[in-house]
């Protein structure tokens, strides 16, 4: 189950390196549990922290560049991680890293993680740093003028995003019991990006919704086999034309809030 959605996006940083961070998290946690016998939860956490630190280091040069250049830098980073994975004998090189202990309740852990992230993001959206992230994403110069330290805000968002991807990688590795570099190629990073954009980038429910729907749609479309990927592509195109802000935008939440409030008002009256 793919579950990773991204903080850097809030600050306007588009990262294609998430698959790379996921790989780091996956491999590090796999090494922890296979070679050093560290139990599941700490192993995954160590993988996440490691990815976060790498994110912090990568974030330093990434701050100086924007848009398409940042895209290329993170793309390059993802490829480096993959190629290192292919060549590193210690983790099985191209043959992959087998024998990762299977975690019985891994799906529960994954759902638990999603739940924790939902709590995190809902708190974030009503907090000082959350507002700062949004402000930096919306207008960097104006954010700086009113007193937001944009360097630390972007760095924080970038590395915490990497941490989350790392955790996702760790859970994924222990679910699959086996990982190979090919699982973390750039197409996956792009897939996550599509989840995010499809679902909506303005609010954290968007990526969750996007990931859910876009993971299940190909399954539902199995009946028409040869055409399902074409349909999937067509759906994305239509989406971008009709609703470029994603399925779930701020206006959706606004409308829901209003409905909710009105409902409450009626109950009282």
């Amino acid at each position, binding site marked *: 189950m793919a579950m990773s959605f991204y903080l850097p996006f809030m600050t306007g940083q588009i990262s294609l390196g998430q698959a790379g961070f996921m790989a780091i998290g996956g491999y590090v946690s796999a090494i922890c549990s296979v070679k050093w016998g560290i139990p599941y939860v700490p192993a995954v956490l160590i993988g996440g922290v490691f990815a976060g630190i790498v994110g912090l280091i990568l974030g330093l040069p990434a701050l100086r560049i924007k848009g398409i250049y940042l895209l290329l830098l993170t793309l390059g980073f993802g490829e480096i991680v993959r190629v290192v994975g292919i060549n590193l004998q210690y983790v099985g090189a191209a043959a992959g890293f087998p024998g990762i202990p299977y975690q019985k309740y891994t799906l529960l852990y994954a759902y638990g993680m999603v739940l924790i992230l939902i709590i995190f993001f809902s*708190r974030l959206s*009503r907090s000082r740093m959350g507002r700062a992230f949004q*402000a930096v994403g919306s207008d960097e110069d104006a954010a*700086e003028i009113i007193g937001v330290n944009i360097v630390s805000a972007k760095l924080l968002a970038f590395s915490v995003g990497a941490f989350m991807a790392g955790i996702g990688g760790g859970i994924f590795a222990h679910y699959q019991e086996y990982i190979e570099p090919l699982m973390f190629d750039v197409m996956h990073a792009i897939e996550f990006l599509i989840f995010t954009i499809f679902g909506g980038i303005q609010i954290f429910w968007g990526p969750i919704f996007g990931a859910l729907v876009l993971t299940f749609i190909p399954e539902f479309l199995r009946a028409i086999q040869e055409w399902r990927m074409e349909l999937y592509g067509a759906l994305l195109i239509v989406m971008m034309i009709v609703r470029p802000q994603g399925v779930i935008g701020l206006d959706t939440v606004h409308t829901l809030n209003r409905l909710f409030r009105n409902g409450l008002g009626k109950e009282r009256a």
Partner: protein
Amino acid sequence: MILEIRDVVKYFNGFCALSDVGVDVEEKKIHGLIGPNGAGKTTLFNLISGMYDLTRGEIRFKGTCIDGVKPHLRAKLGIGRTFQIVRLFGFMTVLDNVMLGSHCKTKAGLSKTFFRFSIKEPEEEKATRENAMRWLAFVGLSHQAHEIASNLPHAEQRLVEIARSLALDPDLLLLDEPAAGMNPHETEELISLVSKINQMGKAVFLVEHNMELVMGISHVISVLNFGGKIAEGTPAEIQGNSEVIEAYLGKG
């Protein structure tokens, strides 16, 4: 003096935008800055708020030199500003925009946001929100607090921007053409708002093309033309200054 600008020179790739400009803004006064288009008014504002680095010269705020200080730290020191073209965070609510204004006066980081076991709103967040609501009430926009900022009419967006910069509790407020695009009625309300801000003990440095506004409320006015200061004085003195009249209307 709250703000001292000394012999400031700014070049853009060989183009001289400001040459040897010196302006002093006094505490608790409204200081007007006028001049024809392209005279360098906004450039000067950008130098004060730290968006550009100056080529030569010195800018002192409350007696300390602030050259090379990052913009967000200048905000923390007490310099607030608004922009010539309104720059709100469009898809956030009006309240969120104003709350952002006190960002650098508050502390809560990511870990504090997450590792918190009560569902109650944290103290600081509550204080920030109440502060923001106070400033929204001050500019008369309490009723719009939960609206998305970009849905507001232009004049109200401008007021939100002013409220946002006030939430920082600045000692010096830079207003870059606050009346641009406002109708006469809205301009009048703006004038009383600016004097109210001034009465709270804040110095206001104001770029404005609307002469009625700038002559009406400024204590001192400086005039820029082609990157140099050509006059300074009370509104009455400026109105009678032949060089200023020439800059605006050409030689008679």
